[in-house]
């Protein structure tokens, strides 16, 4: 600890600046609590179910989690700015349908069209939030409806499911494996590394934190508030679209019924990962732990086997409550 050696030349009292070891420990747990619980669950799961720690099963968890994880990455940025994006579930589904629709014009179109359209939806939302100053909750709620409507109109009210041809480059992008893990897993990891660097090491990342911490102050410090917010929503839209595209590639088709309720799962994962819904604090590493945690819980409930499907929701809800309460106590203990 560098503080505590008050001298006559330091005119400011210093005792309030020091964090005790205990405080630091709590801070660490709060930030990495999800990771800790994740590790614990993995250990418990491995000891309890012989079929759990197999490469195949873990690989399944990884690939299954990679799609919500991409969406959660965008959501993390949005939430750190103090916003929320309820449209991601619909945009995710829309991205998949668009990719399957556009792949007839080639792989590049199959990748770009969903990115552009979903980015545009994010752009409109961002403009309404940052420039017209409407509440993010409502704007993205409208986005949720609008994107779903667009999806239905493209797919003739859901009657048409567009397919991504077998063996096409796009399909291989979603289905390929390397060392037992699907390509989307690697892409997700790469995106998270980039996301972490952007958040911690770029001016944009600083702006994201600053806006969530104190928007007015950030504006006065010269942070381009409106632009940063718009970019964040565009990013969230594009990541949801990309995730939808890769998911469609994996499924070889633009399934129309995906993504309902996904936004709340993703928000839950981000929150469990230690990002505060009030904005200003959070990390992408926490988010990935949060997504994996939810994935592992789901997996473990299935491992138990004959649990009625309704109990799954009860268990998930209860688990969420426990995590959230524990987190709140830890972060408060730290602040005291």
């Amino acid at each position: 600890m560098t503080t505590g050696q008050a001298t006559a030349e330091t005119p400011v009292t210093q005792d309030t600046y020091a964090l005790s070891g205990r405080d630091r420990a709590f801070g660490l747990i709060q930030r990495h609590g999800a990771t800790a619980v994740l590790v614990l669950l993995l250990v418990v799961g491995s000891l309890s179910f012989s079929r759990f720690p197999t490469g195949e099963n873990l690989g399944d968890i990884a690939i299954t989690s990679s799609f919500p994880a991409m969406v959660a990455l965008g959501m993390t940025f949005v939430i750190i700015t103090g916003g929320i994006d309820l449209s991601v579930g619909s945009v995710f589904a829309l991205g998949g349908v668009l990719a399957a629709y556009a792949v007839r014009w080639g792989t590049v179109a199959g990748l770009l069209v969903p990115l552009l359209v979903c980015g545009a939806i994010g752009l409109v939302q961002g403009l309404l939030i940052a420039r017209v100053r409407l509440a993010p909750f409502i704007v993205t709620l409208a986005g949720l409806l609008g994107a779903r409507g667009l999806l239905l109109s493209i797919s003739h009210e859901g009657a048409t499911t567009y397919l991504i041809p077998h063996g096409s480059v796009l399909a291989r992008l979603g289905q390929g494996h390397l060392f037992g893990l699907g390509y989307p897993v690697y892409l997700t990891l790469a995106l998270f590394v980039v996301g972490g660097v952007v958040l911690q090491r770029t001016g944009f990342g600083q702006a994201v934190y600053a806006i969530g911490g104190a928007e007015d102050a950030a504006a006065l410090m010269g942070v381009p508030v409106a632009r940063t917010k718009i970019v964040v929503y565009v990013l969230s839209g594009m990541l949801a679209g990309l995730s939808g595209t890769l998911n469609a590639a994996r499924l070889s088709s633009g399934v129309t019924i995906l993504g309902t309720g996904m936004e709340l799962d993703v928000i839950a994962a981000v929150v469990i990962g230690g990002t505060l819904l009030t904005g200003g604090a959070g990390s992408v590493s926490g988010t990935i732990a949060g997504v994996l945690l939810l994935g592992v819980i789901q997996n473990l409930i299935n491992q138990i086997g004959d649990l009625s499907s309704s109990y799954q929701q009860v268990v998930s809800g209860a688990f969420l409550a426990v995590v959230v309460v524990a987190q709140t106590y830890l972060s408060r203990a730290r602040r005291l």
Partner: protein
Amino acid sequence: MTDPVPEQRNAGDPPVLEARDIVKRFTGVLALDRVSLSLRPGEVHALVGENGAGKSTLIKVITGVHRPDEGEVRLAGRPAGFTGPLDAQRAGVQAVHQEIGLVPDLSVARNLLLGREPRRALGLIDTRRMHQEAARTLESYGVRVDVRLPLRSLGVGAQQMVALARAVSVDARVVIMDEPTSSLEPREVETLFGVIDRLRGQGIAVIYVSHRLDELYRICDGVTVLRDGRVVHQGALADLDRLRLVSLMLGRDVAQVRAEGVTRFSGAHEAAGEPVLEARGLSSRHLLDDVSLTIRPREVVGLGGLLGAGRTETAKAIAGVLPLDAGGVTVAGLPVRRGSATAAVRAGIALLPEDRKAEGIVPTLSVRDNIALAALPRLARAGVVSDARIDRIVETFMRRLRIKATGPHQPVAELSGGNQQKVLLARWMATEPKVLLLDEPTRGIDVGAKAEVQALVDELAEDGLAVLLISSDLEELVEGSDRVVVLRNGAVVGELTGDELTEEAVMTTIAAHTREEVA
């Protein structure tokens, strides 16, 4: 009306910043009426006026937050045409604001260097260098902290210093300081003045906004007095005596100001009877260490000490909002349940918090609802409030406290700081408290309102209340209190009454113990 601009020692230089005939209207209301201002390099220019005179609007026009309806801002002889604060900053015009300014959850270093972090290859931020640079910069302002900590863990004074350091550390040509000393300790003020002198030496112009006359006369060269959106005086500060300055600001007669004195405290009260408030052995980890004090009816007890000495914490502990490890409070001999603000209020303890905006007013509600808030239970029967009783009480206090509002239904957020403070006082008076805890009651409000609040405090004490007064303004503390208890590091280190109660004595008490500690 406007005095000619006198010759200044650097009059030869061309002005670095000029505002010419600025007119600004807000939905038809004239906020600035042909205001001009000219700054030369190295000049420290005082911008004074009561709240609502147009100071902050002028600053916002200069820094590009608002566009003027008429007139222009010129920087170094060219039209500036700033599109926003960022644009202004890039051109070298920096503003340090009084309240908002930094991001509490970001680290000190990131706050200091936000937007101009040292970069490595690929444009990525070099964290290590950022921390070194931040630590070095802050040290030159007398602030030594772990720059990786979140800003919120610093004291208010240190935060202010970070804000200032941030503003100055770029290639500033003009620095605007809005009430920079309002939360600084005397020693920090000295450091700040050292910094301002350094800026002056570097040819940087400073616009200095403050209500503290002493400071203005110590460091400012020129002065612009605004009233009701117009310039009522412009010239060298030295040519203007204090009384005339105050009268210009208030638009009042010099004789009247003289008669009323600098503060409006009347002096000693006739404290009588048994203590109404007794606080015994208040202790809270890291914050308070066995603090005890008593206040009798009609007595004003001051709390002296540096920032972080435990003054606010003492008040909050008495008001039941700071968790205590030990100790307790009795009002009129009856113990108050610990850790419950509701119990404290019911026992007759009222706390006027330091941070009016964050802890005092409810901005979405009207003046009326803000005043009635704490007294609601007593204005209701079976949970249903009586509008008639509320109206009566609100009207009484609005008149008694001379609250300036268009009516009881005006949103409180639209009121000036001084009137908001009076609304908060009214909120407490409506509960008919026995003990009034005032934490910096006159901070950040204009001269006129300040005098009124001071007079009110006197009046309340006369009416038989026990008052605890916390103020960083030594003059206010000494003149307003019958007795001053001095705190340091969360513990009582001295008590001054009667003739021993002078500003020097308070400072000596604080300083003596500080020195002891260091030695």
